């Protein structure tokens, strides 16, 4: 009897599919050589099974691409996100806010900057151009002219012209370049400027507006109205699209700029090009900022549904997070805290902590820019406040025991492998988040898996906290590491090994603890470290410390502390930063074939480094010091005042 039931072809596995087809043939009476590998029928079954597998695989992949969670191609992710009303972020130009002024332009009525390059900056051999897209004019008063607070964008101008042709049903106004800053796009139709809109509010049938849509291959398309939502273009009209092609986030953080000669002096309508060197340049924004690259697939998947739920208004904490990310794409970590959850509560405030992708804190200029944009979305009297996050560095001292006879890799190869593994761990989700957790045993096991010849790994972490001093100001510096510290009576737990300078003392000074909860300021007299005075306290149980000093060094102060546990957690509003050995920390490779281990090689304890004694020639960098005063000061002189200024 013939079996006419349909085949249950549900598997994606070749062998499963083949056995299903074999089972079907087995129930037929026509052929019976299906399970002999040399038979014609067996070969035919192979092809049928392969074909079924191929089709099933394709259908599976296509089905995956239809859902935001499972799609893998960026074009598909973008397409699905657009259905949720979310426009993935394109490249964004880095910006810089500057003031250009000159006192050598008395011969002119006013000075003018035409659209084009104004500044340039070179970094690592590459030149970045900063330009304006509008005409800037400054009148000359008493021989002085000044362009105040002008915002320049990094990149280069490009444009493309289309003629509207309705005979071509498939005509689209596509910008043919990638790396286009979508915010820089300007459109003129028959020389009439059009306005870019991101929603359909306040638009009528005559509005001269356009939309920008992201399409395949990370390109942008300009879309016009249909005489219902915005004016429809007429056949034969000429439209010009101007835009900036940018380098994105790589142009962030530039500080040194030179003026390109694109400035003209105007006298009685006569224009004279002016040399750039008669203008002085002030960078108001400290450095270039705000540039970003294409939004990653994972970011689109994270942001699109949340943006949809935010519905263009900031009500919940998630709304604040997602809208802030949209305003300022250059965010690495963000955390939003409602003021009502603080102790004591601060109703009506929302605290937003932002760590940018470049650097650790955002500058005041960017902070104001974000707040101004964010206020458009806030509800009622809620006040958003941007705060700077704190960071704790973890320095690793690694000893790897390996057997050279078991590998063809050199010591340097193994170090490279370990550094790669540490980098992966340092950027993992458990670390790269606010209140992240560093787990020493997890890192050890991951390092152990990097190479078979490594028989043992010992990782010893220390905590580093960087303090940015307020120079020449007596300040109280306090911070809670929120991790228990070792309190070994024989060794120091807390130290500033590189030292720094304070007002009133010529030599470099160092802070070390005394294992009794006191922080002592010390200095080297000859080669001996002598105490100067108690400057603060430390609680070993909580890792909280504070000290009061009038610091004159203009460099960050590195505080090293020894954690009691190998699991280190970041306090609230703080993220962990695992240092890659090389800059901080060390990796030691020991070949067990040739080296006899000493107890020091395999101890899991690590000591906080002692203050480093520098040569006398380096001791005179403190211009505020007074050697005579130094000789007469006592511990009492450095005892903190009551209620000093809280600086950090």
């Amino acid at each position, binding site marked *: 009897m013939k079996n006419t039931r349909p085949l249950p072809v549900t598997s994606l596995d070749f062998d499963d599919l083949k056995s299903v087809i074999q089972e079907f043939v087995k129930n037929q009476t026509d052929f019976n050589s299906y399970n002999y590998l*040399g038979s014609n029928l067996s070969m035919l079954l192979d092809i049928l099974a392969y074909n079924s597998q191929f089709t099933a695989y394709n259908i599976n992949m296509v089905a995956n691409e239809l859902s935001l969670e499972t799609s893998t191609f960026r074009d598909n992710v973008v397409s699905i996100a657009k259905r949720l009303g979310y426009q993935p972020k394109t490249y964004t130009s880095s910006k810089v806010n500057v003031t250009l002024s000159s006192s050598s332009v008395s011969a002119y009525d006013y000075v003018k900057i035409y659209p084009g390059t104004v500044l340039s900056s070179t970094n690592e051999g590459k030149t970045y151009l900063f330009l304006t897209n509008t005409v800037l004019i400054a009148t000359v008063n008493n021989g002085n002219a000044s362009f105040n607070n002008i915002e320049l964008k990094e990149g280069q101008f490009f444009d493309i012209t289309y003629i509207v042709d309705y005979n071509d049903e498939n005509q689209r106004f596509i910008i043919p370049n990638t790396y286009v800053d979508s915010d820089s796009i300007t459109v003129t139709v028959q020389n009439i400027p059009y306005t870019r809109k991101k929603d359909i509010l306040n638009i009528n049938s005559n509005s001269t507006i356009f939309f920008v849509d992201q399409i395949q291959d990370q390109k942008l398309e300009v879309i016009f109205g249909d005489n219902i939502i915005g004016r429809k273009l007429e056949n034969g009209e000429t439209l010009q699209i101007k835009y900036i092609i940018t380098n994105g986030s790589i142009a962030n953080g530039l500080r040194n700029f030179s003026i390109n000669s694109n400035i003209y002096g105007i006298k009685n309508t006569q224009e004279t090009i002016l040399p750039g060197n008669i203008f002085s340049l002030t960078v108001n924004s400290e450095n270039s900022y705000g540039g970003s690259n294409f939004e990653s697939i994972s970011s689109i998947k994270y942001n699109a549904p949340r943006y949809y739920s935010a519905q263009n208004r900031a009500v919940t904490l998630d709304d604040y997070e997602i809208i802030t990310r949209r305003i300022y794409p250059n965010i690495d970590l963000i955390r939003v805290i409602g003021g009502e959850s603080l102790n004591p509560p601060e109703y009506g405030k929302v605290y937003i902590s932002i760590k940018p992708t470049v650097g650790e804190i955002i500058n005041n200029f960017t902070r104001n820019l974000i707040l101004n944009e964010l206020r458009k979305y806030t509800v009622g009297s809620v006040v958003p406040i941007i705060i700077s996050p704190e960071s704790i560095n973890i320095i690793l001292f690694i000893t790897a025991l390996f057997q050279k006879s078991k590998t063809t890799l050199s010591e340097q190869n193994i170090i490279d492998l370990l550094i790669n593994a540490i980098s992966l761990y340092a950027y993992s989700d458990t670390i790269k988040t606010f209140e992240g957790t560093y787990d020493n045993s997890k890192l050890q096991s991951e390092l152990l898996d990097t190479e078979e010849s490594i028989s043992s790994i010992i990782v010893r972490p220390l905590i580093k906290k960087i303090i940015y001093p307020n120079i020449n100001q007596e300040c109280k510096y306090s911070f809670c590491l929120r991790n228990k510290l070792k309190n070994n009576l024989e060794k120091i737990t807390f130290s500033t090994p590189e030292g720094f300078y304070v007002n009133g003392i010529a030599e470099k000074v160092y802070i070390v603890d005394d294992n009794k909860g006191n922080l002592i300021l010390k200095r080297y007299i000859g080669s001996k470290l002598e105490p100067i005075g108690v400057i603060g306290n430390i609680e070993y149980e909580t890792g909280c410390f504070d000290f009061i000093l009038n610091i004159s060094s203009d460099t960050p102060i590195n505080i090293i502390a020894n954690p009691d546990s190998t699991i280190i957690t970041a306090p609230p509003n703080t993220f962990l930063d695992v240092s890659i050995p090389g800059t901080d920390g060390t990796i030691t490779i020991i070949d067990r074939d040739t080296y006899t281990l000493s107890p020091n090689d395999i101890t899991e304890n690590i000591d906080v480094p002692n203050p480093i004694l520098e040569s006398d020639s380096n001791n005179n960098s403190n211009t505020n010091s007074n050697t005579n005063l130094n000789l007469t000061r006592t511990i009492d002189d450095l005892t903190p005042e009551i209620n000093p200024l809280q600086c950090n």
Partner: protein
Amino acid sequence: MALNKIPETKLGVISRSFKDLSFNFTQNPTTNDVNILKNEEAIKKSVKNLLLTKYRERLFNPYIGSNITAYLFELSSFIDTASIKDETQYILNTFEPRIVLQNVQVFVDEDNHEYNVQVSYFIIGEPILQVADIVLTREM
């Protein structure tokens, strides 16, 4: 040369009938259906298929087949002849359970760059010695 003995475990086994599809896909004038290969013909075709299949040719089954055709592009030597014989014996003993291999003879036709492989075997359950001649040429 003495014939191999049929293993005792396979003595007394009655041969089944084997029906396989013919890749000529010609029409049977009586049944109007596609022609089929039966019994000895089906097994002979299977033997040929196995010898002419190259490694990695079968989908998801890369170990079925032989490297026999590669010898056609070597300088002819007794080593090649021995290798072809070994490979033939290995592949048939491994992948064709319906036969008991008796003998493999390889004849070289150097002028035409050909090998003639003559395979003698018993179909299990049948007392008649079957012989399959397979000509290996570069045009395969």
